[in-house]
């Protein structure tokens, strides 16, 4: 009897330590959906590129504008899905979505992510188009590794896979779209599913 009490106490301690330092309401399902949006976006961009008869998409062209719109749509949809589903999960867990741990997670996510974004825009300006996809993949990966300390540990290995994918992509400039689809699409779906099965479904019981 005494024994069970101590075991319960240790479990409580572990639970409180996690809850007070990690944001555990991050929805796995939103990762799966973000992956699906990314693949749809990649297919749309692929079709646009296939249609044109000339070799390069210039910055002033109609196609480039369309690609930017698609990219923005994918980002906005992914972020809003993540916020909505995480808010729902947080409510179920009796946690606030905007608390100290979610703030800490976001700050640590956005430091490398913003750096990568600005770096990507500078590369675009300097016309290093082939490096944009690898750089975004690498910095997104580093952002995940950094944020993983304040949410599910699983994000750490996902981040490392993104970094490796970005480094491989550096050797294959011009195939950025396919590496993007593989990373933001397939990897998100894969890891989102793992997180959903491991954490979300368990808590729903």
């Amino acid at each position, binding site marked *: 009897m005494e*024994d069970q009490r*101590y*075991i319960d*106490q*240790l479990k*409580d*301690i572990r639970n409180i330590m996690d809850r*007070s*330092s990690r944001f555990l309401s991050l929805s796995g399902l939103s990762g799966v959906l973000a992956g699906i949006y990314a693949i749809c976006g990649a297919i749309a961009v692929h079709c646009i590129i296939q249609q044109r008869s000339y070799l390069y998409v210039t910055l002033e062209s109609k196609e480039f504008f369309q690609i930017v719109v698609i990219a923005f749509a994918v980002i906005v949809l992914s972020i809003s899905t993540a916020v909505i589903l995480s808010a729902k999960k947080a409510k179920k867990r009796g946690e606030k979505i905007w*608390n100290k741990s979610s703030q800490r997670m976001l700050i640590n996510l956005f430091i490398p992510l913003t750096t990568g974004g600005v770096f990507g825009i500078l590369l675009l300006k300097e016309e290093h188009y082939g490096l944009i996809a690898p750089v975004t993949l690498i910095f997104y990966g580093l952002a995940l590794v950094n944020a993983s300390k304040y949410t599910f540990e699983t994000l750490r290995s996902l981040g490392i896979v993104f970094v490796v994918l970005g480094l491989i992509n550096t050797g294959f400039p011009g195939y950025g779209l396919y590496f993007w689809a593989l990373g933001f699409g397939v990897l998100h779906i894969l890891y989102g599913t793992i997180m959903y099965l491991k954490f979300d479904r368990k808590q729903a019981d």
Partner: protein
Amino acid sequence: MKHVISHINKAFDHRIRLGIMSVLMVNEWMEFTTMKELLQVTDGNLASHVKALEQEEFIVVTKQFIGKKPNTRYAATAAGKLAFEQHLNALEQLIKQSR
């Protein structure tokens, strides 16, 4: 067996006090309102357990004003962290020994 028992600290032998220390082991500091939410306790309940831990000098309480709002923060002292670690080790030992 005897020395293990001596490390079970009476000061931590309560769910809320255990909770307060757990939070302060992994966070540099924690403010009153967030602590209350995390442990799901009432103001008075939290305050009385905080006082007990403060008297043992396991935690320090800082009160300050952010604008016009009073803000109370807690942090674990070095002695508090050490005592809590010993307490956890003792708990683990007890469980191991009885198996």
